[in-house]
């Protein structure tokens, strides 16, 4: 077992597709919250294989997409004006701010480094004691332990030249914002497997109960996604609402206690602005007071005005699952991955970009899905 290729098995894909077709009798709208799952569904052509009654809509779970323009502007400012070594995950580098992207700033000579892990940024800080190093800490709960660990490592080593620019978003408050919306059409959720790997299931039971919303914690491979959809359709058809765990090979009921502890030590929850959606109460992480010396916002006192979003972009509806990307008048016309007008087009895990990239793979079926 390598725990990867097995979950792409055509026989199992076929098995679960048949299960879904056998079970479904009515139309259902299902949302996968996580952008990684959106990407996998679209890239593997799964949307074109599902029966007509199962309509998948795509949630706001791409942290790169929902990072406000203003924060990208701040990162560019830190790199260009404050001459810091600005470190970032690769996904964030191409996203345009209100004037330029980090990649543009890098081309103009700013010291911007693309890293695989925030722990590498701490190493860069220890090797460059005369420079300030800032890590652009975007992510969901999945990434929070790594970003928190970087701060703990820096503190342990007594580094004074390391800080993070946080843009941390949380899944459960976003799910609530989606189901609470008057226009909501979502009837069941695939919950994000790797977020639950860290946080466990406890936060989801109240949402399932309160909104009578069935939910299945699901993995990322084609077989995972189809099994998750099959479990959800079966609940919906029976009129049940339960929290089930498809991804039990890595998700435990209580999540990962060591990771949750590190998050709790370093971060506290706060209101957060989501690009394309607006502010959602309690939906983000900020550094705790004890760690404020590692907070780039406080350290550099950057004040940058909020940037306006493009008026033609319907990202708010796309990210809530109320509209599909191709229902936007700008999709593929003025708005493309190389010139994104809004949040879901900025990274391949955003719904608009996923549809755009793979639109040649059975375009018609996909657009009708």
């Amino acid at each position, binding site marked *: *077992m*390598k*725990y*990867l290729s*097995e*979950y792409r*098995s055509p*026989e*199992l894909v076929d*098995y679960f597709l048949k299960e879904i077709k056998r079970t479904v009798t009515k139309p259902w709208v299902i949302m996968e919250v*996580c*952008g*990684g799952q959106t990407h996998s569904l679209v890239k593997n052509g799964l949307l074109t294989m599902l029966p007509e009654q199962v309509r998948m809509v795509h949630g706001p*779970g*791409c*942290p*790169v997409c929902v990072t406000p323009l203003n924060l990208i502007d701040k990162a560019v400012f830190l790199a260009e004006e404050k001459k810091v070594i600005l470190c970032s*995950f690769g*996904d964030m580098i191409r996203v345009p701010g209100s004037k330029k992207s980090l990649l543009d700033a890098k081309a103009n000579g700013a010291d911007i480094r693309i890293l*695989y*892990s*925030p*722990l*590498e940024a701490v190493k860069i800080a220890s090797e460059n004691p005369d420079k300030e190093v800032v890590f652009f800490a*975007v*992510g*969901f709960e*999945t*990434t929070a*332990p*790594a970003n928190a*660990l970087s701060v703990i*490592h820096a503190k*342990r*080593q007594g580094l004074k030249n390391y800080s993070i620019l946080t843009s941390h978003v949380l899944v459960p408050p976003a799910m609530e914002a989606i189901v609470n919306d008057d226009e909501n059409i979502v009837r069941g959720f695939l919950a*994000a497997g*790797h*977020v639950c*790997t*860290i946080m466990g299931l406890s936060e989801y039971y109240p949402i399932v109960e309160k909104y009578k919303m069935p939910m299945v914690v699901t993995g*990322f491979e084609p*077989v995972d996604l189809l*099994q998750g959809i099959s479990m959800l359709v079966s609940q919906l058809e029976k009129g049940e609402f339960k929290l089930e765990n498809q991804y*039990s*090979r*890595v*998700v*435990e009921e209580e999540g*990962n206690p*060591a*990771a949750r502890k*590190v998050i709790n030590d370093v971060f506290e929850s706060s209101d957060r602005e989501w690009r394309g959606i607006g502010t959602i109460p309690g939906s983000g992480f900020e550094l705790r007071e004890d760690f404020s010396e590692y907070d780039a916002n406080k350290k550099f006192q950057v004040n940058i005005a909020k940037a306006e979003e493009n008026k033609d972009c319907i990202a708010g509806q796309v990210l809530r699952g109320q509209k599909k990307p191709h229902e936007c008048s700008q999709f593929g016309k003025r708005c493309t991955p190389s010139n994104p007008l809004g949040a879901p087009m900025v*990274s391949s*895990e955003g719904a608009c970009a996923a549809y755009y990239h793979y639109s040649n793979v059975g375009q018609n079926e996909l657009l009708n899905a």
Partner: protein
Amino acid sequence: MCLAIPGKIKSIESMYNGTVQMAKVLFGGITKEASLEMVPDAKVGDYVLVHVGVAISKVNEDEAQKIFGYLREAGELDELIG
């Protein structure tokens, strides 16, 4: 962005005066470093799920096998997990 992939722990070494366990983890043909601080009981040979340089979970073998139960009767199992 929340991509996390399973890999096999090849070796483990202690860093920062024994406070941090770092592992070399094999993903297919590629080896990468990952911190084991979040999975303190992981051993050489275990499969762990790694996200941005941090192992966030061990893979539970028994749970992982369950999905193949669906194919057992169809007799298509052997070639899949062989």
